[in-house]
């Protein structure tokens, strides 16, 4: 399935079409226009910060349903957390693919799209990322013993943008104080370990 077909499928899935400029931008987004010199420090523009915040909130939105009242990614500071983590904990390959991902979002004018279109973009990103992660994994399992050493060093391309922003959104949210307490049964000092029966609708323990 080529890129155009995937985009069409995603559009169908959402029961509507993307606007022509968005489709065009998606079709060409593998070629980022800017280049990032090595050694440059990681920093985001205000627009990029807004894109990160909107994507994080779409991944883990604030919910007010009667059976699930819980904060969203923005409420618990996930956007700033993502930027701090990208800066502090990732090396250039990941920082580059993160910036490239953001640039694609700028190309499709993500902030100007409606909610449905934004979700469509994320669905498409998800499918694209899945294919890329699968290819990476296949490459890794093909490597056997010590003698394949050189091969693994060549994998210099960073994890895809969607994988990075999704992981950091989940990490930031589910380890934040409000996120943990709203989502799980938080137990700081269990005092024992034992097999128990899971009750219906029981939340996970977090420690």
């Amino acid at each position, binding site marked *: 399935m080529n890129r155009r077909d995937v985009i069409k499928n995603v559009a169908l899935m959402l029961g509507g079409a993307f606007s022509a400029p968005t489709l065009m931008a998606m079709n060409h987004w593998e070629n980022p226009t800017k280049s990032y010199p090595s050694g440059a420090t990681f920093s985001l523009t205000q627009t990029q910060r807004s894109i990160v915040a909107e994507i994080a909130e779409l991944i883990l939105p604030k919910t007010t349903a009667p059976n699930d009242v819980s904060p969203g990614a923005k409420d618990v500071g996930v956007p700033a957390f993502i930027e701090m983590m990208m800066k502090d904990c990732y090396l250039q390959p990941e920082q580059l693919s993160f910036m490239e991902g953001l640039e694609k979002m700028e190309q499709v004018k993500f902030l100007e799209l409606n909610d449905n279109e934004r979700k469509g973009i994320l669905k498409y990103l998800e499918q694209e990322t899945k294919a890329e992660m699968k290819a990476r994994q296949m490459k890794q399992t093909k490597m056997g013993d010590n003698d394949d050493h050189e091969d693994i060093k060549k994998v210099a391309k960073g994890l895809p943008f969607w994988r990075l922003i999704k992981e950091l959104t989940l990490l930031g949210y589910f380890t934040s104080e409000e996120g943990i307490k709203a989502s799980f049964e938080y137990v700081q000092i269990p005092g024992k370990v034992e097999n128990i029966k899971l009750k219906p609708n*029981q939340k996970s323990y977090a420690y």
Partner: protein
Amino acid sequence: MYLNIKATKNNTFDAIVVGSGMTGGFAAKELTEKGLNVLMIERGREIKHPQDYDTAMKQPWEVEHRGKVTAHSAEELWANKRFGNLANDESGPFFTNDKDNPYIEKRPFDWIRAYHTGGKSMHWGRQSYRFNKEDFEANAKEGIGIDWPIRYDDLAPWYTYVEKFVGVSGQKEGLDVLPDGHFLPAMPLFAPEVHFKKMMLEKFNRPVTVGRVANLSQPQEWHTKLGRASCQYRNKCVRGCPYGAYYSSLSGAIPAANLTKRLSMLHDTIVAEILYDEQKQRATGVRVINQKTNQVEEYFAKIIFLNAGAMNTAALMLNSKSNRFQNGLGNDSDQVGRNIMDHHLGVGATATVEGFLDEYVYGQRPNALYIPRFRNWGNDKQSYLRGFGYQGGASREGWSRGVNADGFGSDFKQSLTKPGQWTIGFGGFGEVLPNPENRMYLDPTRKDKWGVPMIVFDAAFGENEIAMRKDIMNSAMEMMDAAGFKNIAGYNRPEVHLGLGIHEMGTARMGRDAKTSVLNAFNQVHSVKNVFVTDGAAMTSSSCVNPSITYMALTARAADYAVKALKKREL
């Protein structure tokens, strides 16, 4: 610095112990309890138990990078980073900065160090298994390396002695391959693990047990006396335990030695050389360098225990040159620094478990399931020698399953608040054969910032280890399949080198013959009778079981011998 006033007069003690980790702590405990005034010298900073475990009680949101390693830490702790996330905010401060303490890799060697009070005992995996009878005999039977100068029965009472003091939770199984010890109550296996245990017995006649782990499941009077309390099942051991629930030199041996009031300790003090008296034909003391002030000083004692960790102990011997020992103290055999062994890991399999969806667990077990060695055991015969054990376990997936799953939005978020399916994973710990070509030595010209020659590593896995690794992965997958597990994925990490098991050993081996070994049956240097080496350097073979409890048993046995010999004026 806590110098015992009486002893400082002329820097002279009954015994000097180099290193405060797993074996240094135990040596200090044994020697002080037997009446000796002991100076223990630690090259790294002082950590006080428990008040210096400053990340121990932090809640998840109080840990800035939430378990990930910063790029800065990864650069500073470049060797440590190869292990995984040890250099993160929680445990990074308790490992050694590799940039400040560099070493040279002629061939890659993963050297993970902890220069501070208690050394690596502060964050060891705590798995505690006795060597079996065969482990002490296999070298001789197979013509590998040299024969151990001792047998299982020589060490058995010392295993019991150490297990009692340390406190090991475990299940007696009555197996020759994994001898039982003195155990505190065992921790539970989880539902899919119980199923797995049953299936392995039925299909392969392979026993499975719960890990034997040095966490107090039920403290005894001699544990509480030292201020140690029951495990709280937080499984945050790597940060240091504020309850003293897992054994470390800090929570156990050093407090016990301090009770005697015969222990003096130096921190930030690098032992650069063992002083040798050509006339008396014995070691007289050590030359040390203060790592902060560079001040050089000498300390003297009747006996010296080397417990600096296998690689540093060998380096210290190699750096102690004299007219008599031009290749390093006690190195007539040229075996000091050779025969580096470890346990090779980073190979195994993972799978998902169908069912058991009404089963869950409260609390966090700081332990795993253990599958004892079954290869080249009984009637099993492989193309390679020796064997491996597996460690791992089952758990229900948490929120992190969402990272690689499809989906986002409110339903996705809600779904991640519930436990996911069960998954299971276990990895092998494989025996490494001794090979004199696997070695470390001192660089003839390059020195560290204290003027001590840098260590060069020149070692790699051999054919036996590489063949065993394939079997470790395939057998793990086969066993998971037989248990009915799904989505089985084997792994054999290519970037694993010797050292990554953090069980580095063998660089001053015990043996019967001074021509082919460095130490005798009581860990005494053949040619310098008042120097004892009782850390991992002493090991003649590696077995496949975690080694700390064996190091401690050897230490207790050697200390007993040393004090008796001192009293008989043989030393």
